[in-house]
């Protein structure tokens, strides 16, 4: 539909705007690689001495970690501007979005093109290919379809929650810290088998902040470790759908919050 075509045009314009800042791109790419690799370094080092975490061996964990990275990168690529909502509001740019004939969320998303997001996707993909090669996963057609859907669903689960949290910016002014905290929660908790954290935390990370749906649950399904899961199997298979629901819910919260927008300035 024409809205998407217009959004695509805006995105291309944002990309053209960014190509000016090439050095920034190089540094950001290295930053991205370092950031993504660091969690991996931890797993590599500890599993050298110990051999499993909660029964998951190195190849399992590598698979989990790279799946999370991939889902996160797929979320980051379109939605990276969401975290900057409070800045956009403070600069008065959001007023402009509300006055244009296009969904303000889409406008926010296409406002700036984050080049390192592309780098993140490439790095995550490379890492995933490696992890997939050593993982105990049967890549049947059914599993591959599930994998693709799970990555999308995982990205949506993360995006939905971040949408809801960042929409706090419509009511309060300084929300970057909350968004930063949520990003870190997804990063820290999402890289391990959530079971390791105990029943309560596992429940919170599944139903309150959908961290588990980003990678842990789909990975469990693909690694055929569903017996250790803290949720019913049927829910696990439906993880992509739950991700979609989370996104839908987050978007509704966002839309509701826009009504409370106070704008800024005189």
């Amino acid at each position, binding site marked *: 539909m*024409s809205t998407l075509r217009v959004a695509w*045009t805006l995105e291309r314009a944002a990309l053209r*705007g960014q190509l000016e800042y090439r050095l920034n791109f190089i540094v950001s790419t290295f930053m991205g690689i370092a950031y993504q690799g660091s969690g991996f370094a931890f797993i590599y080092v500890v599993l050298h001495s110990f051999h499993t975490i909660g029964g998951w061996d190195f190849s399992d964990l590598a698979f989990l970690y790279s799946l999370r990275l991939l889902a996160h990168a797929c979320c980051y690529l379109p939605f990276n501007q969401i975290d900057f909502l409070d800045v956009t509001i403070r600069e008065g740019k959001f007023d402009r979005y509300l*006055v244009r*004939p*296009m969904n*303000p969320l889409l406008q926010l998303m296409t406002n700036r093109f984050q080049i390192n997001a592309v780098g993140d996707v490439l790095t995550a993909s490379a890492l995933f290919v490696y992890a997939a090669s050593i993982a105990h996963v049967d890549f049947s057609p059914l599993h591959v379809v599930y994998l693709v859907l799970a990555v999308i669903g995982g990205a949506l689960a993360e995006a939905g929650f971040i949408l809801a949290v960042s929409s706090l910016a419509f009511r309060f002014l300084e929300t970057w810290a909350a968004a930063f905290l949520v990003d870190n929660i997804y990063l820290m908790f999402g890289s391990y088998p959530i079971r390791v954290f105990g029943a309560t935390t596992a429940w919170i990370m599944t139903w309150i902040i959908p961290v588990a749906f980003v990678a842990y649950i789909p990975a469990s399904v693909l690694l055929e470790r569903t017996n250790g899961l803290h949720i019913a199997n049927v829910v696990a298979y439906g993880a992509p759908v739950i991700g979609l629901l989370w996104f839908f819910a987050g978007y509704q919260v966002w839309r509701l919050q826009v009504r409370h927008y106070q704008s800024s300035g*005189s």
Partner: protein
Amino acid sequence: MPPVIRVENLVKEFRRPRKQEGRFGTVRTLVTRQFDSVRAVDQVSFAIEPGELVGYIGPNGAGKSTTIKMMTGILVPTSGTVEVGGLVPWRERERNAMQIGVVFGQRSQLWWDLPLIESFNLIAKLYRVPDAKYQRNLERFIALLDMEEFLERPVRQLSLGQRMRGDLAASMLYEPQILYLDEPTIGLDVVAKENMRIFIEEMNRDSGTTIVLTTHDLADVERLCRRLILIDHGHVLYDGGVEQLKTKYAPHRILVVELEPDAVSSGRRIDAADVPGAEIVEQADGVARIQFESARTPVQDLIAALNARYPIADLSIVEPDLEGVVRQIYDERVPVA
């Protein structure tokens, strides 16, 4: 014909959490949740007919921007109605957006890193302007606003005047019914201001665009608007013609009389008895400022009376200026009947 903009009993209240002072202020703020309520717009009502050019003025913090933001759909009213072109702006934002143009004097709508012409192209795409119409309007505005020389330059490299011209053109490319101008001449030099005013006037006259102009520069208003809405502390203080405002609120004009140098050196002064129906406000060094009410005292009688008795070197009449009138109204803050 129904009014194109209709505002009825419009109210906007802002609730801000009251920050707690003292120890553990942050925690207390989070926990106790006390709010300060501010009524930025309090029972504002007016209607604007299609094709009008209305000035909407008030001091800072008066509620002008808040009203405009509700009319453009940026803010949701606390209560009351606002209807623009038959739509409720905040309910149907995207449809409303197609019929309005907005220029924020201090924040550009153009794409910062791209050449100006690309911003225009993007806007044409965004508003789904048919190619022929776009080309026609583009040519017209480039000529009108003299933008040929900087069309290819990135917006961030443009001067304020150039950028404002670009913003103005961008807002009219898709021929909106209604144009909101928020401080469009701020920071511009005299020449640029005049060019801006000419453009605005032309858009209103030739295209019949309804224009709502918010500005601190009352010269803009005097030049462009026939109707004026004055707001302060969230209330409408005046809604009517500019001329009527001046006559009603400042019915006085001032006659400045300068006596011949000989008379001055011999200490001659104008006597109050010689100017019945008028008041000598100030008299020094042979120059007298005489205040009178045009309605009651015809100026020609006054001049004739003075001329008969005094050797006059020079005469001039000072009209009340809008700024003085408005300032008076702000100071007194009494709604003008």
